[in-house]
């Protein structure tokens, strides 16, 4: 049982993610996390003013159950299956953290951004809120996120998903290599 508590190797994780998609397909569903954000907007009443949110959200409510499960899974992973330690990233990555003001001895997420003690300053809130805005806007514009495009879409050999995934990487590379030095 010891292997459960260590970080899982990528070849196991990758297989299990594909299996998750397969089981959802067999249940007549699809693997896509970001459409839940649209459903939640609709539940909050966004459909009254904007036609994009005026859809039968109950038909998609099954996906909210999956997301609720993901929250519970995160709780189980953090509290029962690990000690919350920092991922064992490469030495080169570790060495570069200093220039961002992020400690090399850290937790599962960087404490500088995701601890309650540090979040109460405007810059951190702006980073988290801004990042969320980009994710929410971009994923709906692109019609999917990492699960919908990079896993489901590429598995179905869809050209639009390949374009989207290339876009994901262009955006990510611009952020880390060009904008990080300006932001952090």
């Amino acid at each position: 049982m010891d292997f459960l508590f260590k970080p899982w190797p990528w070849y196991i994780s990758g297989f299990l993610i594909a299996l998750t998609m397969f089981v959802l397909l067999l249940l007549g569903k699809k693997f896509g996390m970001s459409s839940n954000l649209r459903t939640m907007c609709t539940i909050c009443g966004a459909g009254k003013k904007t036609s994009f949110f005026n859809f039968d959200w109950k038909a998609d409510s099954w996906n909210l159950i999956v997301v609720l499960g993901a929250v519970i899974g995160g709780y189980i992973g953090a509290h029962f299956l690990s000690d919350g330690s920092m991922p064992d990233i490469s030495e080169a990555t570790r060495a570069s953290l200093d220039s961002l003001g992020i400690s090399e001895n850290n937790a599962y997420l960087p404490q500088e951004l995701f601890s309650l003690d540090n979040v109460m300053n405007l810059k951190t809130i702006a980073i988290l809120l801004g990042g969320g805005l980009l994710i929410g806007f971009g994923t709906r514009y692109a019609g999917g996120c990492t699960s919908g495009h990079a896993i489901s879409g590429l598995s179905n050999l869809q050209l639009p998903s390949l374009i989207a995934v290339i876009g994901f990487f262009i955006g990510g590379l611009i952020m880390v290599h060009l904008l990080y030095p300006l932001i952090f």
Partner: protein
Amino acid sequence: MKRIVLLIIGIVFGIIMYKSEAASWFRIYEMFRFESIHMYGIMGVAVGFGILFVQLIKRFNIKSVDGEPIKIAPKEKSFTRYMVGGIIFGLGWALVGACPGPIFVMIGAGFVPMLIVFIGALIGTYIYGVLRDKLPH
């Protein structure tokens, strides 16, 4: 019954995201610096087996548990929306080190500030809905 199955799938998915470290900012940052195979390995293996599973469904006409044929709706043909939307998404993904699935997983893991990312994502989704007809697709 189906709801319980979906909840279990979600729980297992959340555990996979946590234990694979795909939900960690550090792994995303490392990926965009090309300094480890970890994230590329996860996605490569996932897509490899994903292609296999989808081909199995198509070749053997596997039906869903309801007896319906499994159809994966093709995305509409376009370039602009996927490229521009993708880039915007990528900027956010790299900035906070989480995509939509891991946002929920990390909230469950107890990282309260991730709620700010979640609220931002809801607002971003709403802004897209409002501007949709004015955007090139």
